[in-house]
């Protein structure tokens, strides 16, 4: 059986998560442009999500 595919997804606070590719994406979440196996998606998140502060916190601080 094919390995299940996941998407890297992001909300408006620029928090990342992963989501099964064949499931409807919940409201308020967007495809972050990366798909692959679960491990590949998590590795991608590890690389791109460098600041875990929500966007609203980052914007006030800077």
């Amino acid at each position: 059986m094919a390995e299940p595919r996941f998407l890297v997804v992001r909300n408006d606070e620029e928090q990342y998560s992963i989501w099964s590719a064949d499931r409807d994406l919940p409201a308020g979440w967007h495809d972050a442009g990366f798909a692959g196996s679960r491990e590949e998606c998590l590795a991608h998140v590890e690389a791109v999500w460098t600041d875990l502060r929500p966007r609203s916190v980052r914007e006030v601080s800077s």
Partner: protein
Amino acid sequence: MTREWTFPASFAQERVWLANQLDPGSPVYNVSTPWRFPAGVDAATAAEVVDRVVARHEALRTHLRADDGALVQVVREHEPVAIPTEDLRDRPEAERAARFAALRTELAHTPIPLDAPPLWRARLVRLDDAWLLLFVVHHAVFDSRSAVLLVDELAAFSRAALTGASAAVPELPIQYADFAAWQRDQLAGAELDRQLDFWKRHLAGAPAVTRLPLDRPRPAQLGFAGDEVRFDLPDGLLDRIGQLAAGAAATPYMVLLAGFAALLSRISGDTDVVVGVSTAGRDTAEVMPLIGMFVNPVALRCDVGGDPSFTELLGRVRDGLVDAMEHGQTPFQRIVEAIDPQRDPSVQPIFQTSLNFIPDSGLDPVELGTTKDDLAFDVTAGQSRLVYRTDLFDRSTAESVVTRYVRLLDAAVTDPQRPVSALPLLDDAERELVLDVWAGAGTAGPLPTVVDEVQRQAAATPDATALVCADVRLTYAELNTAANRLARVLVARGAGPETRVALALPRAPELLVAVLAVLKAGAAYVPVDTGYPAGRIAYLLSDAEPALVLALPETAALVGGDPVLLDGETGADRSGADLTDADRTAPLRADHPAYVLYTSGSTGRPKGVVVEHRALAAYLAWARDTYPGLAGTTLLHSPVSFDLTVTGLLGPLTAGGTVRLAAIDSPQARAGGRPSFLKVTPSHLPLLDAELSPTTDLVIGGEALTGEQLAGWRATHPDVAVVNEYGPTEATVGCVAARIGPGEPMAAGPVPIGRPTAGARVYLLDAALNPVPPGVVGELYVAGDQLARGYLRRPALTAERFLPCPYGPPGQRMYRTGDLARRRADGTLDYLGRRDDQVKVRGMRIELGEIESVMLAHPEVREAAVAVRADSGEPTLVGYHVGTAEEAHLVAELARELPAHLVPTAFVRLDALPLTPNGKLDRAALPAPAAAASGDGHVPPRTDAEILVAEVYADILQVEKVGAHDDFFALGGNSLRGMRAMARIRAEVDVDLPMRALFSSPVVADLAAVIEQRITAELDQLSDTEVAALLAAEKDTPA
């Protein structure tokens, strides 16, 4: 004298006989076949017609007998049997129907003993112009095809009697006993082995039990008590099922089965389900016209894995059913013995559910109040039913199983391309209930920082006592001022929002001052337990990357580097006024982190959970509302690195209460009177003496809690509320809680965890993230204000555990706890353990808490823990107990209350259960049980009864050495041999020993104990004279 002939029993008769032995007083195997004679047939003729049928079919003249351990069928020569008649025509109409119903019910409910001919009962009843026959017959000699044959022949002989013509009934080339002999001959030796090999392969690795959503734990011994829910399929559904089947090269039965498999998978969480179906067992023309018992159960194993579409599942069910039916003649009893020889009397072997499709026959009008399966559907074109085991299910649960089955089936047939996971189980109202009403609000509006909360309190009650630690006592004003001074030092050294400050501080006043100072500076505090090993402290300090480390002179060496030393003078020259944003490196907001706590998951390195002020303020607001005791004195006894302590630390400081800082076993903990609030783990409960027990709120968290653990404490403190709080660190201290008010009754067993706190939303979801129905086990997900930000500098881990939430406001996340839970009918949550450490022994899922609570019910067990150990390879259950209980008593107690697979095989007595620094049970520190005393574990039989049982086992099983602890089935016994063993024992001791005694007590010592009990009971019933006579007779017998 009536002549008799004996023949070997058929496999089906053997199976029914054995099952019947488990509860011989039950009418579970009664089959009712009522029939109405044509007008014009009088009572004498009707009786003669019945007699003609009985004369033709030996099965109706057959009973069963155990002859020295072998089951035989005894066929008697034909002789007319009188049928009682009752003419109801003289009675008033209303009374007539009632009398008829009563007769019918009484006949159907009266057990038919298998060893006394005949195995049927009949009545002729006259209501109007025709005679009605009530005919009830034991399943051992009759099946559903037999019912059709019976009715046909009754009709044929009646017609013949009315017309004088000869009856049009088929010739019977053989009789049932001929079939049985032929079957015994066919299914033996290599052929039987070949068939059993198929079944062993087919069922290899299948779950021993489908995890149905039970309302009650399984009793140690199954009975036949059952009930049924009758229902009608929606109009047209069977037609649409037929159309789907026709287009998929399948039968309507396969569609019904695929729907049932899908339902079972969805409500059990198992993707591998085994369902019982049956074969008619009439494969040759000769047996077609015979009345008799031919049916053989067949196990249909359905793979629901990989989330197939319904069409795909239907294909799998079709192939599986065809395959199973091809091997349908293998005697089911033989399969059971080949697969599951050590059968557990609490669970029906191989399958626990079944589905029959009998489109053309109606349901029996009489409800027997019995069941063979846990759940069994009989689907007909008219009224259908679900029969359920009342030991396990409430009626409301059975009704919801029916509703969900019909809903799922209807949707599947409407859109067969839908994946099984997307088929609906809930209606709209139920969805709203589980996703909205029961999930909780999740937010209480805008939230302040915890700094605001503490400062508000300090301003309101400056002279109240905030802290007591040994002989140090600080007022709110003093504590707040000290914290402000230290905070200014920390800010000057770089601490501020989004930075962390590590606290390497023991339980001392400085700890509280430091926690507040870090928060006031805007930074997050990271507690470092000074009792931890150096390596762990070093890891934590490097992982947390703190801007500063605070230590006391005596703890500085633990942390290395250049910590900020708190020496009583630190910040003494600074202003004691509250800090404003202008004093900080950046403005402090409610979504800045307040603390980072490290948790060790079951795998990998400990990870820092980042909790923001918003989440903490939400929890504290709920806690202040829920725990009035926080305004009094709390005892803070556990390390602050454990998030359970947040309640007793920051709770009182935002409620005007006093924090008493002391170890739980120190005199200081007891100084100053009982605290009003105390939070502990269940493992602490035995320590709560009269001086330590709180006066207002006892909060228990951190581990699963049982009613047994609490019962003693509640009995001595009836006026204190107890709250069971559940929550992972990732959802801030506690996100679900159950309050048991003073005097409120509390059941034994696991205490529910209750309902979501005001700042949390809680969902129970299945693997496809669908909400599960009430009663069904799901994984617990938490969303809402109390959610942590994530794991410090662990983006992938955060993304993996904090998922997009499909159910709340857009863009929100939900935390996957890895915990399993279930909702009661009122929405209350029950905690069921971790998803990833479901314990299995011999393929059976074990709930350790269930065993622990039974151990705790023993009066001499003070504390108990159960663990699964694999010290000797095979995983086994080990019970640990503190107290004076004798192992033998404990085993006997457990065996009475629990299914055999839940009784630990070894016990270890401990002086105390080992605890972690946080007060939780330290499972890793539980010792291995000592190896069995005499090397190979052989314990020679000790009493006369044990010697007898051991000798009988040894002889029947051809085993050389049988010890007191040996199990009949483990030694290679099966039901048939068991029958012989019991016959032998009965012959030796002359007591009434039912077959079920062997199933419930297969171990030599246990069965011997049952025998001794029975002998004692029988002696008790004798009068003194009779006993004296017996003793005298004994003396007279020459030695």
